């Protein structure tokens, strides 16, 4: 009996215990008991994942569960990475949930579903057969759907978000289902091993169809454009700890699916166009997601858009990796895949932190609208610090979490072009065009992410409060802070000492593409096979030393004088009211104008004139909306087609018994005619 087995057993056991507890424990104590047990589930998941990453393997078959097919669990390196990430997110979210759930989320149903959601998140990457995978996948969709609707009485948008989510997730499921079934059709049984063995004989067209279908399905789970529409709806409407789980753990599993199918089930030297497709979709998602985030003023929606962006970046890595693998540079392929995996890990840490902090704000102020927040630092210093740390991590600036993974990604991309003196045939033309553009997209994304998070943190937490609710906000309970604290620690550790996980992830990636490990086991991030060295620890140390010097030297030279507070410069007009502050909308306005053609915002300016004179203005009202263009051009035609279909369909059932019988007679005659002719 190995560690993975014990830990997974523990996870399942404590999750089921949590479900039981949710049903029997009285309301007051329920969140604490369920939260603790769920945190144990998550921790067990982390242990299982870590043990498997360190080399333990685990496989079990339970043929008596799920009739007709049975269940098979297998934990390998790739699965273990995602298992550990999901578990870690679950720990933070579960602890946070203890405090957050007293906020009307302590009903039996919600509390019982939460541990199941966590368990399904852990089991998806542990699935060892197609049926198991699909069962866990749907269980994950179902439980998250139930959690999304848990606040349906509070806001009308919840029901609509849930509908979007349910339909899109089912769409994704059907795509994945068909894709995986095509893959497994020639296989003997549905275990991944059998599918892998049989996939080699698939014709390119069939394999391509299967891959594209899987890509669509998994991509929709990851919020990849154009199947992203549900994500900015459902993630914000879920309770915040669930948002964290969805945005930091669930979306990852889409990536897991793509990697599993593309690198594992199908041969590694898969065709180039798939990976180009993955890369392009990733790049589009990254750019489009962050543009939407820049102009969002809803804090949680902004974070959801940022999830799309980050998953896009991950897919850029995955796509680049496949591209490198297909042109025969496994070292770069492993590097790019490592970057993608690292970004998944880092994103999980900071997105958990950000969503939990946003939930804390929502809990304290009752609003997610950045335009009416601000000045939270006074009332909620710890939440502010947590969000600030998350924002730094998310904006890909050193010394932040995302910087490390983006650095590795950029390194793999820029090394994709061979040195000029190499043979020109070494790189196909497509990479010469694609790689610089990919770098540019990653860069633009990073830049816009900076704006987004400066806006979210600066406007949301700094300056002066823009509403009474924000002015009177008080810090959240200890459990919520503890949850945030865990995520903050994770984000910090990943930022400062990424080599705790990077070489391991590198080995996982290397195993998938068949290359030596791309990252050396060292304190610094040292690339193997290509030149590249980054030492986040030294960056931090250098910055601290420099900061000490900058503070100390002037004091030594110029002497120390007491700090005094003074009025802001108000142009002599008296104390400034919050109405003169810059809002999130106005902050993003320049970028919105720059990207006018992409975003196509809808703006209305209503000018009310004085009654006496048309030359005097009483009020100016400015409204701006940034509708999702892709939604308008892709979803609306589909929706209107379905609506027309539904309306036309009614003609089938007019109520006329003659018509109904006529269907039968016509069919009978047609079949008889066919019989006669055949």
């Amino acid at each position, binding site marked *: 009996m190995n560690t993975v087995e014990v830990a997974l057993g523990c996870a399942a056991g404590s999750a089921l215990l949590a479900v039981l507890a949710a049903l029997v424990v009285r309301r007051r104590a329920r969140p604490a008991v369920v939260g603790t047990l769920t945190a144990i589930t998550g921790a067990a998941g982390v242990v299982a994942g870590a043990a498997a990453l360190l080399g333990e393997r685990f496989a079990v078959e339970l043929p008596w569960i799920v009739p007709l097919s049975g269940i098979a669990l297998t934990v390998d390196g790739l699965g273990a990475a995602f298992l550990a990430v999901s578990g870690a997110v679950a720990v933070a979210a579960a602890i946070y949930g203890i405090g957050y759930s007293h906020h009307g989320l302590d009903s039996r149903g919600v509390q019982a579903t939460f541990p199941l959601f966590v368990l399904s998140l852990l089991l998806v990457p542990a699935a060892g057969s197609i049926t198991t995978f699909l069962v866990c996948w749907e269980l994950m969709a179902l439980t998250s759907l139930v959690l999304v609707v848990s606040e349906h009485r509070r806001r009308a948008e919840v029901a609509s978000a849930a509908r979007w989510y349910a339909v899109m997730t089912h769409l994704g499921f059907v795509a994945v289902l068909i894709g995986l079934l095509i893959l497994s059709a020639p296989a003997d049984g549905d275990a991944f091993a059998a599918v892998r063995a049989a996939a080699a004989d698939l014709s390119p067209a069939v394999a391509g169809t299967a891959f594209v279908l899987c890509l669509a399905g998994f991509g929709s789970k990851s919020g990849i454009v154009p199947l992203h529409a549900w994500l900015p709806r459902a993630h914000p409407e879920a309770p915040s700890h669930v948002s964290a789980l969805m945005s930091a753990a669930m979306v990852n599993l889409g990536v897991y699916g793509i990697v599993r199918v593309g690198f594992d089930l199908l041969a590694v030297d898969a065709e180039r166009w798939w990976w180009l497709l993955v890369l392009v979709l990733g790049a589009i998602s990254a750019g489009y997601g962050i543009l939407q985030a820049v102009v969002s003023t809803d804090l949680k929606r902004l974070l959801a858009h940022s999830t799309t962006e980050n998953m896009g970046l991950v897919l850029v890595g995955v796509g680049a990796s496949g591209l490198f693998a297909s042109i025969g540079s496994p070292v770069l392929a492993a590097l790019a895949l490592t970057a993608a995996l690292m970004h998944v890990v880092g994103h999980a840490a900071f997105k958990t932190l950000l969503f939990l902090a946003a939930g804390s704000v929502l809990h304290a102020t009752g609003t997610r609208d950045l335009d009416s927040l601000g000045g939270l630092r006074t009332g909620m210093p710890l939440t502010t610090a947590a969000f600030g740390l998350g924002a730094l991590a998310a904006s890909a600036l050193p010394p932040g979490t995302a910087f490390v993974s983006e650095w590795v990604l950029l390194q793999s991309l820029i090394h994709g072009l061979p040195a000029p003196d190499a043979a020109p045939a070494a790189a196909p033309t497509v990479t010469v065009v694609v790689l610089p553009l990919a770098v540019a997209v990653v860069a633009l994304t990073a830049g816009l992410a900076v704006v987004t998070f400066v806006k979210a943190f600066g406007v949301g937490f700094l300056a002066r409060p823009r509403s009474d609710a924000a002015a009177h906000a008080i810090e959240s309970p200890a459990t919520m802070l503890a949850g945030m604290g865990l995520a903050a620690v994770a984000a910090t550790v990943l930022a400062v000492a990424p080599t705790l996980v990077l070489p391991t992830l590198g080995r996982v990636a290397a195993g998938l593409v068949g290359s030596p490990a791309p990252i050396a086991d060292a304190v610094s991030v040292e690339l193997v096979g290509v030149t590249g060295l980054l030492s986040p620890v030294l960056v931090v140390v250098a910055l601290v030393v420099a900061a000490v010097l900058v503070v100390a030297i002037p004091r030594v030279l110029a002497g120390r004088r007491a700090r005094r507070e003074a009025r802001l410069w108000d142009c002599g007009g008296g104390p400034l009211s919050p109405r003169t502050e810059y809002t999130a909308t106005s902050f993003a306005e320049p970028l919105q104008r720059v990207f006018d053609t992409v975003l196509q915002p809808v703006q209305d300016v209503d000018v009310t004139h004085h009654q006496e004179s048309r030359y005097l203005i009483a009020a100016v009202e400015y409204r701006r909306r940034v509708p999702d263009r892709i939604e308008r051009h892709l979803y609306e035609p589909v929706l209107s087609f379905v609506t027309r279909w539904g309306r036309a369909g009614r003609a089938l059932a007019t*109520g*006329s018994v003659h018509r109904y*019988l006529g269907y039968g007679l016509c069919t*009978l*005659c047609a079949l*008889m005619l066919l019989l*006669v002719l055949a």
Partner: protein
Amino acid sequence: MSDTAYVQLLNLTAGAVLLCAVLVLWRRELAVIIRLFAAQGVALAALIAVLAWHEGSPELAVLAAGVAVLRAGVLPAVLRRALGTAREGTEPVREVRPVVNVAASLLAAALLTLLAFAVSRPIVELAPSPATQAVPIGMAVVLIGFFVLVTRRRAVSHLVGFLLMDNGITAVGFLTTAGIGLIVEVGVALDVLLALLVLQVLTGRMREAFGNTDLDELRELHD
């Protein structure tokens, strides 16, 4: 009896069965339609009697008598009862405006008969005999019965259409093999009778609820 007489009688009765079905399409008065149906019952009974005579089977003869009682006596009586209550009302006793007009109906009947003949080829070929050669007629009656169901708007014509189908099936049954087992036969007959009674009760309820028995009124349940 000589073989020619047998064949002629068989063809005659079978032809009468088909003729009655076609005439049902032609005529509009409901009372006449019911009478035609009764006539078809007689023709059917005669057909079975001819078969019984030819095979010298008393069992078949009893069945012929049963068919005569049921299809020429009981069922028309039930139909007449369904119609009878209508007479007291103000509703028309004619098939005023069928879904497909009479001329087109007759044309359709011709086509359906052709189709029946074409589709019955394997049946005839399996065991060519005077009896099986008349099977297409039974098939045609089934199709015409179905056609009546599809195109006639009055409840009573609907019932007749259903019973025409049943007559056709009975004809096919007797022409192909000598019965399909007594229990099943009785069960089938009972089922048909009960279905008809149910429909007759429903006709009454329809008259209560809608004021007439025009099936076009039944358009409330739709999407």
